[in-house]
């Protein structure tokens, strides 16, 4: 049935990077859509961007950057055999990810209260540029938020494995891989932030 299991950490890491490439291309397709509609509706996009809260966007950006550093540091902690610190850092990472989602919830809530959401007739009345801007905004940040949720679940699973000593100081490629996934989520946001909040 299965062959003898031999460990190949480099294969595992390579597999994760290849998967990250597919995620980059998934969002890449949305960047294509963004480029086209931004080119065709420059003023509408510029004006609509003013309606987004730069403050919340900046805070969220910094939240993710900190969470990237905490998960990176958790690897160092595990390598130094400081299991407690590794788990603490992962806990902070998850907490920050949840904080990001909470911010997003309130941010979206504000827009939806003003009847700004995909398919809204009020939004349609505002003009095609606005419809496309907000369509892209909700779709791209929504897809990104979905990836945050997936990432948080992934990290939680890894944390449980570390707690149960299935992942240790000399066998931690799964922790590295979860870090890679989380950093990708951070990278996508690093580009979403200026493209929606800073094109003012």
């Amino acid at each position, binding site marked *: 049935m299965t062959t003898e299991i031999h460990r190949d*950490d*480099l294969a595992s890491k*390579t597999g994760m*990077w290849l998967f990250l*490439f597919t995620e*980059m*291309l998934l969002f*890449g397709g949305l*960047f*294509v859509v963004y*480029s*086209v509609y931004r*080119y*065709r509706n420059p003023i509408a996009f510029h004006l609509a961007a003013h309606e987004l809260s*730069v403050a919340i966007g*900046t805070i969220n*950006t*910094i939240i993710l*950057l*900190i969470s*990237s*550093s905490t998960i*990176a*540091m958790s*690897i*160092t902690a595990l*390598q*130094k055999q400081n299991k407690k610190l590794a788990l603490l850092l992962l806990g902070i990472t998850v907490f920050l990810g949840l904080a990001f989602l909470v911010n997003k919830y309130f941010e979206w809530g504000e827009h939806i209260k003003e009847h700004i959401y995909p398919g809204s007739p009020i939004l349609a009345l505002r003009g095609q540029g606005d419809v496309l801007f907000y369509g892209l905004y909700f779709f791209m940040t929504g897809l990104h938020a979905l990836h945050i949720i997936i990432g948080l679940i992934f990290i939680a699973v890894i944390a449980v494995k570390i707690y149960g000593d299935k992942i240790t100081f*000399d066998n931690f490629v799964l922790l*590295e891989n979860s*870090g*890679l996934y989380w*950093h990708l989520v*951070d*990278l996508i946001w*690093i*580009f979403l*932030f*200026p*493209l929606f909040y*800073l*094109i*003012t």
Partner: protein
Amino acid sequence: MENEKNHIIPYKTFLFVLAGLICLTLTSVLVTQISLGPLTVAIALLIAAVKSSFVLRIFMHLKFDNKMFSIGVIAVILLISVVIIITLLDYLYR
């Protein structure tokens, strides 16, 4: 196993990089408050690119890994860029 297994990045490195990333973020926000025309967005994206390179090279370990991973990342970014450029060849010249 790899030599890279023994390579441990100090906490300080991560904290310095984090500090730099936060500074760059705040810079990009301040820059875009000043109106520099089309240049504004270009600068914001450039800063985003610089931030990304820090995340890729330090947090994601590309600086210390086999060069093939970096080549792969750059190739994918180029691929997406070329697809966007070719698509815009349609929209720009209609």
